């Protein structure tokens, strides 16, 4: 029951995030969506991932969004869609429909028990070494991105 509630809240947040006109509110709705995803992850038995999602997805990314939107200025988004809405709807329904048709029948009602979960750290460090290296590289890229953002805002302050 609680799963269903969280799912509904999650999707409402997502829809709001792309519906609202003000970018700042959109970022906040995104944070809400992220929090709901984190809750769902917790319910699924992945508390570590949930915490990371909550802190990074709902926290850090939102801060960055607010930061960037401040620099850019909350310009009024164009309401006119990029491609005709009919085509957009058709494509979305088609792709989601196919995915649903393929996936939903495979799901049984029971989830296997969390009988024996190995330590998250051992799996990550032994089996998924490549992932860790990739993450390090990505974080490095991210740091450079943040530096770019900050240096730009400083340049703007100087100009003013």
């Amino acid at each position, binding site marked *: 029951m609680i799963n269903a509630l969280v799912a509904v809240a999650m999707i409402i947040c997502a829809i709001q995030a792309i519906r609202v006109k003000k970018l700042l509110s959109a970022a906040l709705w995104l944070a809400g969506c992220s929090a709901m995803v984190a809750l769902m992850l917790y319910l699924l038995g992945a508390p570590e991932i949930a915490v990371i999602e909550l802190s990074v997805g709902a926290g850090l990314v939102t801060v960055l969004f607010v930061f960037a939107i401040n620099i850019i200025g909350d310009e009024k988004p164009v309401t006119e*869609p*990029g*491609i005709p809405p009919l*085509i*957009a709807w058709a*494509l*979305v329904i088609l*792709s989601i429909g*196919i995915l649903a048709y*393929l996936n939903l029948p495979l799901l049984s009602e029971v989830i296997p028990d969390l009988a024996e979960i190995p330590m998250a750290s051992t799996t990550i460090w032994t089996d998924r070494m490549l992932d860790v290296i990739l993450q390090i590289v990505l974080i490095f890229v991210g740091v450079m991105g943040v530096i770019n953002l900050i240096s730009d805002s400083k340049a703007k302050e100087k100009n003013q």
Partner: protein
Amino acid sequence: MASTLILLVIGLSWLGALLVWWVGDKRSALQHALAIFFSVASGAASIALIFNASSSTVINLDAGGVFGQFTFVADGLGVYLAAIATVIGSLAVIFSVNYMHGEKGLGRYYAMVLFFIGGMAGLVLTSNLLLMFLFWEITALCSYALIAFHNDDPKAVAGGIKALIITQLGGIGLLAGALILYSQTGSYDFNQMIANPGIINPRLLSGMAFGCLIAAAAKSAQFPFFTWLPDAMEAPTPISALIHAATMVNAGVYLLARFYPAFEAVPGWKISVILVGMISAFISAIMALFANDLKRVLAYSTISQLGYMVFAIGCGGIYASQFHLLSHSVFKALLFLGAGAIIHSVGTRDMREMGGLGKKMPFTRFVFIIGALALAGIPILNGFWSKELVLEAGLTGGPVWAYAIMLITAGLTAFYTFRMVWMVFYGKPSEKHIHDAQPAMKVALAPLALGAVVAWLLAGPFASLLQSTLPAHNIHPASTMEVIVEVIKAPATYVALAVVALGLVSWWQRENLAGVSKAFKWLGTIAENSFGFEAVNKFIVRETQATAEELRDTQTGLLNWNIAGLLIGLIAVIIILVMGG
């Protein structure tokens, strides 16, 4: 050992490419030094690789179900071509220190050269046909970028685009071959097919054979795709020496030689190969007779000599063709680099404006004449031995009329070679201020000149290298002495020498033969228009560009449409998976 060396050969040149580009054009001295260091290191690794040649797979990277195993094999054919690519590559880089001194965009130049060297080594060392296609395209890309190096010159850009389009369209033949191989055997490894061509459906095998012939003809500038090579002469001269004489254009010959055991039995394939080689050799020799641009003469003669190699493959003379490839790489790189020294000094490529340079450029004259004699097939230079072997292969394995035409071509070769040497170094001296080759140029020219004189001594070791590592190619081991005796004893040698001498004499007596040359004036006009094939090639290039221009409309540049395209692709892939699964 061999696996490390292969990685070093490819990796060092690519690492060098990155570093040279990264250093930046402001530190040009460092760029020269880095380029020399990495190309020479890669050359050393490839020479070490020759002593580790074997027919077994030495590197095997699993690249998943779609791409198969990325395999590298250090067999005789591969290691010696890799050695040619890297050694002549490093000599061209050394030559560039003087030739490209003070040019803008050195980083781009050296990065592309080093990227090319690595790509070429990879092309000949891999045994995965898909990977080979990838390297094939890398070399084509570098060739394009370097032909169009002076990108403010519309002629250079047009030449680059032409080379790119023609070789790419030919490359489709190779891709088709790779896909056929995959569909039939479930892997891209071509060695199993070469060992046992029967595993492929005969009709598909014939499609593959002719696809590879088209790819090879486009890459090696053979009939009917040969007109891109003369236009590629807009490239800086070391590039012409490296890419358009010694290495990349050999890729087509390599491809045919590599697959010869598999395609041998395909009906009509051998005769097609003989025809392609013969027509290219003959008509480009005629075009070389009438050209006045020094580099264009060399380009036509490259096409002609490549025609000899293709012809030899068609006649079953794999060893002869590869030996001629080795000789040709050495003497043609020598000729091109010598021509580079001349052009650098005189400032023009038109031979009519040269003349009498011999006195002022004694070193260049010396090495250039060695190269020219080797090209003409004068004993005892390397070109003589290998050309005799090719002609002998033609006599034993090919039709007589083709042999006769190749003989005539040998005479023509001698004729245009002497015309070229005469126009450049002798005759009426021009009043220009001329300097001889600069130090780095000499460093690059001297080993090549030495190579043109003594490389034929390697005939025996070369034969045993090929024989021991290429079980399917049916190459007979022979010592250098046996090769020499074979060539000297064969009556064909003397026929060929007589024809070459005839070519020489007719150049000597050109004043007395003025009537004949007048009678052939019409031929000159046609030859300057590349016998009409220029129009065919231009048509291909124009149509490709027009199609591309029309396809531009599908690129809206709007992100939303691109996402829509992605989604449609996703839906299509899922539907195919569901249907197929």
